[in-house]
């Protein structure tokens, strides 16, 4: 975990649209970009530390942050405005002002052990062939990367991670697999991700982590959250079994 000081924000009012009677979305940009993601992560943390009456939760995504609230609490609050959109926007723009000053944000960095290839990474050869590499080169390049969690989506705890070496880029499978085992590490286009639960899926599977990516019994059930930094380390079957307590 490292502490970073960042300077953020612009003087432009936030772009906010209504998603439902209970939520609004702030659009911070249009392209996937690490700086933008840092901005969203910082803004999110500032908002959660300085909530408005009725704030329930937030959902960060690639270029947006969605804010969920209880409309009754918002309407009864003394935030300026007549309707929820105005009242919530007023607060969010105030947060953006804090953002213009210096803010201290904690970055979480996690190392995730992965047993590559074999039965666990049955698409490793596909990824290697698609990119004219051998399997060990794919593993080396995948473990050399420093990744950013762009978003948790799809199913509980599924992290979409960017920052992968472009030379590993592989399209999704044409026909999605009916069952992908929990812990499977996959590649889709320029992103890498880990299946937290056994679900259908279309990503190319290159290995498996013994870590529980989603566990309802943890205070934070999802191991990863938006904005986290991640790297992978190769482990063999024995180490995998040790992790699993086999």
């Amino acid at each position, binding site marked *: 975990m490292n502490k970073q000081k960042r300077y953020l924000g612009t003087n432009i009012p936030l772009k906010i649209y209504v998603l*439902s*009677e209970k*939520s609004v979305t702030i659009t911070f940009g249009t392209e996937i970009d690490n700086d933008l993601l840092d901005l969203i992560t910082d803004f999110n943390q500032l908002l959660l530390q300085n909530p408005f009456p009725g704030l329930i*939760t937030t959902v960060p995504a690639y270029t947006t942050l969605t804010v969920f609230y209880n*409309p009754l609490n918002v309407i009864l609050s003394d935030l300026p405005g007549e309707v929820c959109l105005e009242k919530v926007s007023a607060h969010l723009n105030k947060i953006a002002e804090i953002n213009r000053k210096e803010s201290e944000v904690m970055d979480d960095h996690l190392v995730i052990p992965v047993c590559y290839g074999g039965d666990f990474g049955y698409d490793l050869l596909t990824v290697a062939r698609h990119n004219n590499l051998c399997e060990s080169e794919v593993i080396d390049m995948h473990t050399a990367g420093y990744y950013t969690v762009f978003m948790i989506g799809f199913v509980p705890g599924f992290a979409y991670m960017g920052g992968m070496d472009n030379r590993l880029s592989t399209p999704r499978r044409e026909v999605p697999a009916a069952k992908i085992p929990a812990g499977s590490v996959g590649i889709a286009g320029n992103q890498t991700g880990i299946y937290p639960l056994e679900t259908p899926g279309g990503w190319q599977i290159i290995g498996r982590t013994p870590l529980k990516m989603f566990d309802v019994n943890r205070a934070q059930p999802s191991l990863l959250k938006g904005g986290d930094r991640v790297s992978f380390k190769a482990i063999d079957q024995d180490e995998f079994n040790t992790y699993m307590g086999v």
Partner: protein
Amino acid sequence: MKISIIKPGLLSTVQDMGRYRYLSQAVPVSGAMDELAHRIANKAVGNNDNDATIEFTYANASFKAETPILISYSGDGAFLIHDDELMPAEKPLFFSAGSVIRLINNPVGVRTYLAVAGGWDVPDVMESKSTYLTAGFGGFKGRELQKADVLVSRTILNEVSNKILNQLIERSLTYPNWRISRERLLPEKRQKIRVVLANEICWFDATSILSFLTSNYIIDLRSNRMGYHLAGKPLVKKVKKELLSTAVTPGTIQVTGSGDLVILMADCQTTGGYPRIAHVAAVDLPLCAQLKPGDMIQFSEISRDEAEELYLEREHDLSLITMAISLKYI
């Protein structure tokens, strides 16, 4: 209070008003599809709105009271029958131990909510009692109800529930003369779904937007707690843009790559990458929850502020119902 499931029916799960605090970890909201019926069933036995109910899908289910029970039901998927007698919805119902209650088909809708005084006692998972089947957590052991499952209520009743119970026992009644009127809260034309146009509306050509707001759509067979696919005239995007995945929520209407509409429902994913043409007004989401394959709907546009106004009015009306019931007993 305790019941055992004799026949679980097509899909029966324990639900409350949803799991909102873990959306950022991609944990869906879940909860009762028809939140209005869920809340009214709870109110009728003096519960809090968020207490857990059983969501039945269609009918063909039955259960037995293992102890004396104070229950109520609301929704459009089934009627409750006891001793071949139709039991009225949206009021408290008292049954002695050994009573068998059956659900028979109500052709109007799909889902029916069974509340028990005190609420069904299942553990909280991530601050909610709702079942999320895909990941197998929440509700009753993370799964749908099966034959022989035994469900119990929380033992401590609040004052209103206690007084309702005592009154019915003292007067040897199955139910009191009052009931909550859910119809009064719902619009008359239930096939007309009010919507607010969404952020990507300008991605579609004018003809498509017009057709969205004027033509008929039929609920497709591919419809479940995650969402409903609609059959109708496909919409045409006028821009080549793709949407980067962003948060979606129950009520969001997405347009798929082939131009088809999907209304997202309680168990929907937390993020989606399809452009959104509109969202269903929160007050009309309960109507959607009762739609079944083959039903025909039309969308009608209202403004964002109108949708909010309707929502606040609905909440006000619901709070008056709670107050009226309390005043009756306390």
